[in-house]
């Protein structure tokens, strides 16, 4: 359940804090199946909106179709002034599958019990990754559904309702390369724009946001990577208890004296401790790592918005210059004037909506961090208390024996 809940908690509230109130369009991923390389998500929609033909309906979508939808939003000029919810990451079970395979290949030095436990752990890991990918895809859709402008997009309706395959094949190499190049050009462009002597940021708010976002994004990415490493070490630690417990068990089995009970009790203790430590690791993963990762992506989306606005500002500046030139030459002034006006309007439109979006981003971020940090602390306390109890009980038993 925690995987799904993670999705719900990091849900934005750009319109209102309580999203549950808006029931006119409810989207969720009700089912998911993993088949070889692909994951098939069942997207279920409940809506009373007039655009749809039914009140409740489902379609099956794959990851590529989510990406298609995301790109459609990004490329749409109408949404240039909005933060486009970050695309969900591609489902990746490679590492987990490899580990399971390696385990299956067999290691003669481990006992049957150890093998069973390790397999159980890996299966749980696989399942956790699966749940996470479902949550990521779901939260993407839910943010779209919650946004007053984005939810009205035609492609979104198609995505939700169209029963057939959207025939969106995965990007081929050329397109992928094109995508990378576009990103490079974009960042070069952005750097260029901001250094252009003519381009002065007119608004303090945006100047502050730009500085803030650049730094924030870098640091949150760092924090996310390091949180991942902590989680990974914790998981390794928990897994270490498997062979320890097994060895203690064997020792207990072959002992003939008073140590027998002690060894067996210890074996049981380490097994229980393992489960607790495993839970600490997975809670850290969900409440900390995943949250940081989400806001890393979201802050990137916010940066993209700023870039688009800067681009619009540059266009506006250029249009001004062109107009001046046209007036000087007294040629095509009309064209230049209307162009300049269009650019101005566009820039202002973008600035207004960007301001709102960025403020929403902040409040979204604060709410989400607050919730996750509280839950993290509560869970850590819960596990620490459970561990203490377990330790006390074990100590009592050990001390009580002759």
């Amino acid at each position, binding site marked *: 359940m925690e995987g799904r809940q993670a999705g719900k908690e990091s849900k934005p509230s750009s319109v209102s804090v309580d999203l549950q109130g808006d029931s006119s369009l409810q989207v969720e991923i009700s089912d998911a199946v993993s088949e070889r390389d692909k994951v098939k998500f069942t997207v279920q929609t409940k809506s009373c909106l007039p655009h749809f033909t039914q009140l409740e309906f489902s379609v099956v979508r794959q990851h590529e179709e989510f990406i298609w939808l995301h790109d459609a939003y990004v490329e749409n000029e109408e949404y240039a002034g909005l933060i486009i919810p970050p695309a969900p990451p591609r489902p990746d079970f490679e590492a987990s599958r490899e580990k399971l395979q390696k385990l299956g290949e067999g290691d003669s030095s481990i006992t049957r019990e150890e093998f069973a436990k390790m397999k159980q752990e890996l299966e749980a890991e696989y399942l956790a990754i699966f749940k996470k990918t479902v949550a990521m895809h779901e939260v993407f859709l839910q943010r779209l559904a919650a946004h007053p402008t984005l939810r009205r997009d035609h492609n979104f309706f198609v995505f939700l309702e169209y029963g057939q395959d959207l025939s969106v094949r995965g990007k081929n190499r050329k397109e992928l390369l094109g995508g990378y190049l576009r990103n490079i050009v974009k960042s070069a462009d952005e750097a260029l724009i901001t250094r252009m002597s003519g381009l002065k940021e007119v608004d303090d708010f945006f100047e502050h946001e730009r500085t803030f976002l650049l*730094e924030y994004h870098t640091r949150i990415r760092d924090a996310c990577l390091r949180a991942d490493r902590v989680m990974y070490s914790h998981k390794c630690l928990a897994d270490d208890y498997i062979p320890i417990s097994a060895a203690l068990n064997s020792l207990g089995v072959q002992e003939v004296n008073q140590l027998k009970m002690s060894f067996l009790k210890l074996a049981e203790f380490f097994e229980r401790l393992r489960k607790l430590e495993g839970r600490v690791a997975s809670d850290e993963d969900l409440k900390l790592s995943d949250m940081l990762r989400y806001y890393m992506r979201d802050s990137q989306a916010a940066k993209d918005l700023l870039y688009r606005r800067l681009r619009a500002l540059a266009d506006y500046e250029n249009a001004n210059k062109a107009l001046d030139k046209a007036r000087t030459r007294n040629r095509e002034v009309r064209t230049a004037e209307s162009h300049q006006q269009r650019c101005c309007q566009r820039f202002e439109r973008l600035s207004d909506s960007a301001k709102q979006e960025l403020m929403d981003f902040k409040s979204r971020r604060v709410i989400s961090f607050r919730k996750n940090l509280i839950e993290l602390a509560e869970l850590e306390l819960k596990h620490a208390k459970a561990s203490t109890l377990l330790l006390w009980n074990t100590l009592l038993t050990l001390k009580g024996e002759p």
Partner: protein
Amino acid sequence: MAAEREPPPLGDAKPTDFEELEDGEDLFTSTVSTLESSPSSPEPASLPAEDVSTNSNGPKPAEVVLDDDREDLFAEATEEVSLDSPEREPILSSEPSPAVTPVTPTTLIAPRIESKSMSAPVIFDRSREEIEEEANGDVFDIEIGVSDPEKVGDGMNAYMAYRVTTKTSLSMFSKSEFSVKRRFSDFLGLHSKLASKYLHVGYIVPPAPEKSIVGMTKVKVGKEDSSSTEFVEKRRAALERYLQRTVKHPTLLQDPDLRQFLESSELPRAVNTQALSGAGILRMVNKAADAVNKMTIKMNESDAWFEEKQQQFENLDQQLRKLHASVEALVCHRKELSANTAAFAKSAAMLGNSEDHTALSRALSQLAEVEEKIDQLHQEQAFADFYMFSELLSDYIRLIAAVKWEAKVQQGERDFEQISKTIRKEVGRFEKERVKDFKTVIIKYLESLVQTQQQLIKYWEAFLPEAKAIA
């Protein structure tokens, strides 16, 4: 919200159902079991007997060959060390008699039982009952501490001197509290003396700690880094445990050499200690014992007991090694966790600095502080993991090896009856010691884990209101 989801099948199998359990149970239950293959053998592979010590950094001793060269080496060495020096004879007699004694440095000193009485310490004349009473009474009013490692001298001739402090109310000592300075080779010298006198009689002499060329060289050349301080600390702790084990032995406690070691301010330097290091001896002995085993040995009824004990110790040894290896992995991962937590703490602090929402910024800084404290906790816990758990196990592995040798060696002894009685008693005492020792250390270790958890609770309880204060 839908209740069921298809879990991903593993490999190519079809999806199956799974259920989600309440928190408090396992988070995930999977009934998928598509992996056809199973481990080839559940039994752990048998580990080589030679690999006695897992903590040794030193080079292996010279290959053991049952020939004259080695005998000469030992003849030379034991000359210095033994108190009394009866005539030595090469041991590996070619007699067809059942008295086949495996070649060991200790039995070189007392070739025949008849001449043994000469080299046995006078203390053996004391009534056995007295010693036994002490043993059963379990009142060993003696405490040993090894502390204050100090570097003496410079360059390659430098060495570490340790303070050995004894607190006791036993009458055999002239004072109730006293301390002396000893160096590592002194400990080895003590061990070889004790081994030479008691091993062949059937006593289990606790093995001395490992030599380490690498470790010591670093210390000698004055490399003041954390690894050499760690090394010195490891050694200090090992020496302390060694002495504590030795004085717990009622017979060894009576030994004048031990008393001299603990009490006298000057000690004649033990030389040729390289051949006499604990694991070195055991390694050679195991090889010798193996060679001897291949010869026919006359069995009698008592041997059934030895056989059983040998098997028991063999199994124990294997399992302990496995456990030890796993605990070492644990120590390693805990250190990693500590380092990663520290790195995360830093990045959380940076993030907190960047965050422009004041309350959230503060909370993130608090989180960074908590994580830093947790990092410290992990470090201390790793320390406890190692010193309590891991070292205990490696001590026991080496002790068991000594006991295994015992059982093997004495099978051929001529004066079997007397020795076997001693051995049985020793093994019995060892068993009791082992139980007590192990339990004590495990309890201490678990208590250290409790400490860690309680600290964690404190830290998170302090953090929670900060998180809630984010407005």
